[in-house]
């Protein structure tokens, strides 16, 4: 195991973590402020990826595909919020689970009806090759793009939430919804906007990860659970918590799958390593979450006192 290999995996982990953050950002705000469990958030990631892939092949441009897909998904999210999700905010968690589970079924089959079970999406040819970051460290150019976009959006979102008026309203809502409503904040409109932005961020993640993973029906179901893990670890409603949680989860997941398995192979007999490696790697994230919840039940950055 070389330093170069470790560095490469750290970059991969960071890249996955940033994409997870894009998913978790909208989820944590809706969850934190509206106390709403949205199981269909992963479906927005899927819808976003399909729209990006469809537009990319229709226009012949990856950039147009992603930008158009993000805008359309944000609009779709806004409509969904106004027509359905809004009426669920006041209901209990059970009703929200049932309704958004129903939404997963509807959107999975809906996408299948419109686009089929999968769509091809490949990275632009100009980003196909690797870039030499350090002497000896070749890193795929496309993955660098994901890292850059992820960083830029994380920074933008951080500034938006922490430094602007809209962000202050959102944070006030997360800390105490009734009070901020009583102080004259139009919480309903604010949350259509928040939901639309969250949906757009899902599409960014779906579109950018599309060429690396696959654009297919059901793609949102496993990553949704990871996004939930992120926001629970970070503290529900906290953007900072979501960012740190996402990077931790991305790092644990990626490093567990690569470095940990290599280390096990060096120290354990091969049949043990090949059996235990993948198991430990894929459950490490969940063990981490369970430990955090037992030690700090409100997550690492609790929003409510």
């Amino acid at each position, binding site marked *: 195991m070389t330093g170069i290999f470790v560095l490469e995996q750290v970059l991969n982990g960071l890249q996955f973590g940033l994409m997870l953050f894009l998913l978790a950002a909208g989820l944590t705000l809706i*969850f934190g402020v509206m*106390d709403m*469990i949205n*199981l269909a958030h992963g479906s927005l990631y899927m819808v976003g990826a399909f729209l990006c892939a469809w537009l990319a092949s229709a226009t012949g441009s990856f950039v147009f595909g992603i930008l158009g897909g993000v805008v359309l998904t944000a609009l779709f999210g806004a409509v969904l919020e106004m027509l*359905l999700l809004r*009426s*669920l905010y006041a*209901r209990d*968690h*059970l*009703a929200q*689970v*049932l*309704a958004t*589970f*129903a*939404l*997963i*079924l*509807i959107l*999975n*089959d*809906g996408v*299948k*009806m419109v686009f089929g079970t999968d769509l091809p999406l490949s990275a632009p040819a100009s980003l196909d090759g690797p870039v030499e970051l350090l002497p000896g460290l070749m890193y795929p150019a496309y993955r660098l793009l994901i890292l850059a976009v992820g960083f830029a959006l994380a920074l933008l979102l951080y500034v938006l939430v922490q430094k602007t008026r809209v962000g202050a309203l959102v944070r006030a809502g997360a800390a105490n919804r009734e009070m901020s409503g009583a102080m004259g904040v139009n919480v309903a409109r604010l949350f259509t906007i928040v939901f639309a932005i969250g949906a757009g961020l899902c599409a960014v993640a779906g579109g950018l990860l599309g060429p690396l993973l696959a654009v297919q029906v059901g793609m949102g*179901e496993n990553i949704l*659970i990871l996004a*939930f*893990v992120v926001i*629970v670890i970070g503290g*529900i409603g906290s953007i900072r918590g979501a960012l740190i949680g996402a990077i931790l989860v991305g790092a644990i997941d990626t490093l567990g799958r690569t470095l940990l398995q290599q280390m096990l192979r060096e120290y354990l007999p091969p049949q043990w390593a*090949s*059996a235990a490696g*993948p*198991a430990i790697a*894929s*459950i490490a994230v*969940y*063990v981490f*979450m*369970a430990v955090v*919840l*037992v030690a700090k*039940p409100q997550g690492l950055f609790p929003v409510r006192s």
Partner: protein
Amino acid sequence: MAPADRSGTVDFAAVVLVTVLAVVLPWLLRALQMDFYLSFASRIVVYAIAATSLNLVLGYGGLVSLGHAAFVGLGSYVTAILLVEGVTSGTVHLVTTVAITASMALFIGAISLRTRGVYFIMITLAFAQMLFYLANSVKGYGGDEGLTLRVRSLFAFGIDLKNGLVFYYVALLVLALSLFALARFVPSRLGRAVLALRDDEVRAEALGFPTFRYKLTIFVVAGALAGVAGALSVNLQGYVSPNALHWTQSGTLLVMVILGGVGSVWGGALGALVLLLLQEVLAAYTQYWEFWTGWVLLGVVLFARRGLAGLLFAIRARVAQR
């Protein structure tokens, strides 16, 4: 006569009617030359058991678990692994499955029940995910491809679960016993204490109830019953894969309970029956049956807030008033 006085009679009549229907169903299907639906009926019964076990936790304990498939899937795997290893005794399968799923529920419950609300939802989900990935990675027992069985559990007196008719009646018996036990549990001392802590945990604790121990007890009982459902399920299908542990399975069980009626004795069974029937009927007409199932579920959330049991209660009140 006051309307409420006759509702007990209506209930009794309904129970007798449903029981008779369930018992004669195999003959009915044969007479209609629809024998192939027997295994579908068995599947409904197995899901009804699993959903009833979740209803105990959810409807009576007030604990929203999004990881209940962990116990069903674990029960399937325990029985399947015993069968693959050459153990054919159904009694051994049953005892081992109950012991292991109950222990797992004890372990998961002891940790999860220290959290509440959404955190409980998420931590039960996390444990189920751990088992899901564990099952995926154990290559010796099928890994992500799952395990296929050539034999089934054998009980004394030549009861072989490979026979479809035998299976149906065994599963039906388990379901009937579970529902009977649940109906007896509700007015019992423990049952009323559990309901008290569901409705107001602080008050129950102030009254001196050992709330944690009560919650853990029903969590373990529900886990063991779910394990039995899993053992039956693998006997019915002859197959188990990690998908049995996937979170969408837990979601489906939750949907069944909410659909049928949270916290009503029949809720889980009713929800399983209606959801599976709905899927079967829709699948006959369209390949996009999930799409239409989703719309029906949305309709239930928005317009039948207490599930189908709530609707049935309204009907019962009407009938009893006549």
